[in-house]
């Protein structure tokens, strides 16, 4: 419990800054919707005229930007990228920092097993990720509701945030696994952010070239896309199963490799 508390305290400041960032993105993003919605359907025409690669990169796809949920679906992609970066950096740092800051010689000579340390750190990062998600959810509900002139879309927002939570957990555990696996702690952040970037670009590529469709199982950015969630009104079962399998494998990797690890001091 003491390690858990210590981690919560150590991450408090950065979590607050991230939450302010989310508040700003949701707020300013939805404020633009107010301007867009006055132009009627012309925004969809404008977007349709853009090159398809640009459309894919911006994550527009089949979203109807004239509706509040369609527009929020576009904003959702940016929130997901932000949340994924946050989760990946959190996971990589929380595991590597004892070695990076050379506090490993303090912590790991205490009468605790490495399993205990990992459990406390994973626990703390899950709580942090939940706080991040709840803050985003709250901001989204408030701002979407404020600019919405039609029927309530709160249930859609909650569904999307559920998808974002799955993405956060995925990248959190992937990055702890990478951090436990790599020999030198300073490489854990570059590698995890690298994975993030590659999987994101892959998801854009899949949108552009239909023959790459099989790759959608490889990149988590395809698991919980706004256009699918809004269209189906629920998660795709096979992606949920795949997510849980990936998470379980990552958690296992984290424990197994961290226990065997030669701490780099």
């Amino acid at each position, binding site marked *: 419990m003491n390690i858990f508390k210590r981690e919560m305290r150590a991450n408090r400041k950065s979590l607050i800054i991230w939450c302010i960032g989310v508040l700003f993105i949701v707020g300013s993003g939805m404020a633009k919707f107010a301007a867009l919605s006055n132009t009627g359907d012309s925004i969809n025409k404008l977007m349709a005229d853009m090159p398809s690669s640009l459309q894919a990169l911006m994550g527009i796809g089949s979203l109807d930007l004239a509706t509040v949920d369609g527009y929020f679906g576009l904003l959702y992609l940016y929130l997901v990228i932000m949340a994924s970066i946050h989760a990946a950096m959190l996971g990589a740092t929380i595991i590597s920092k004892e070695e990076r800051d050379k*506090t*490993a*010689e303090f912590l790991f*000579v205490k009468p605790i097993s490495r399993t205990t340390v990992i459990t406390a750190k994973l626990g703390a990062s899950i709580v942090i990720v939940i706080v991040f998600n709840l803050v985003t959810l709250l901001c989204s509900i408030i701002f979407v509701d404020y600019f919405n002139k039609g029927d309530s879309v709160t249930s859609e927002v909650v569904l999307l945030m559920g998808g974002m939570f799955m993405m956060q957990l995925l990248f959190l555990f992937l990055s702890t696994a990478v951090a436990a696996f790599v020999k030198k702690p300073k490489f854990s952040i570059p590698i995890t952010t690298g994975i993030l970037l590659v999987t994101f670009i892959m998801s854009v590529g899949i949108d552009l070239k239909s023959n790459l469709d099989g790759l959608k199982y490889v990149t988590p950015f395809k698991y919980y896309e706004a256009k699918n969630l809004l269209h189906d009104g629920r998660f795709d079962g096979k992606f949920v199963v795949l997510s849980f399998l990936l998470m379980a494998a990552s958690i296992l990797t984290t424990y197994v490799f961290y226990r065997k690890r030669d701490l780099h001091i």
Partner: protein
Amino acid sequence: MVKNSMLGSEEKYGNTLKVLVVLSIKRGVDKMNVIEVKNLTKTYGKARGISDVSFNVEQGEVFGFIGPNGAGKSTTIRTLLSLIHPTSGSATIFGKDIIKDSPAIKKDIGYLPSEVFYYENMRVKDLLKYSASFYKKDCGKRMKELAKIMELDLNRKIDDLSLGNKKKVGIVQGLLHEPKLIILDEPTSGLDPLMQHKFFELLEEENKKGATILFSSHILSEVQRLCDRVAIIKEGKIIKLEKISTLKENNYKKIHIETTTEIGKDYFAIEGVTDLVVDRHKVDFLFKGDINTVMKKIATTPIVNIGVEEPDLEEIFMHFYEKEEAYEQ
């Protein structure tokens, strides 16, 4: 091997058990080994590491671990603390395996690393409380006592402390749970002589109370003062394991003579004399053996001045090292 099987004695029955009970009673008479290292090897690629290191540290002794930088002192200590895992070989502390029983062992270990690093943005008090929270006992009183002895201000931020003061935090942190085994890795760097003195007094006190101490250093004089036995490590291998008293009492005398007349270069080249330097009227050498033979030799030549000294460990050590090197070549 016998000891290993004894550890698992609970599961065994009948005659085996009786024999083992007898053995353990007999063993209780002997001094128990707090640390037993058997053929410990750790290789990092091909570069650094230790190879085939074996030694025991007895209950209640102060054991010195001596060697130049990069000889493998820290590697050995970090392996004992299971911060890194051995490539081969094994070791036990308090009779328990260093890898399997690591958390249990560490309840009674206090460790002071050569360089101390702590979490950002913490006060000394907070860090010490955090450290104490890992041990299931009340360390508050001992913490205050130690801080008083080491003149450490508990309310300051660790980030603002000087190197020496950080080291003091490390000392208090390592001793506040009253460990039975204290492991020190080059503990005096950064401490001023006065604090060093207080720290050594503190260690002597802990040792009197029953704590065993493993003390690694490259400074021989501090080892000479505290330790009962030393292991000398060089390039990852233990090259000598000796009682400090034997090492010193090796009957080496450092003799300096000034004569009235110039004497022949070979005048003192008798058995037992090493490192002979003759500079006209002045003669210096180390002598080992029957002191009477050299005294008789000195008596037959008129002298102006004579000095007979116990060589310090440094000189014996250098002497030993040089010989070792010459032998290798």
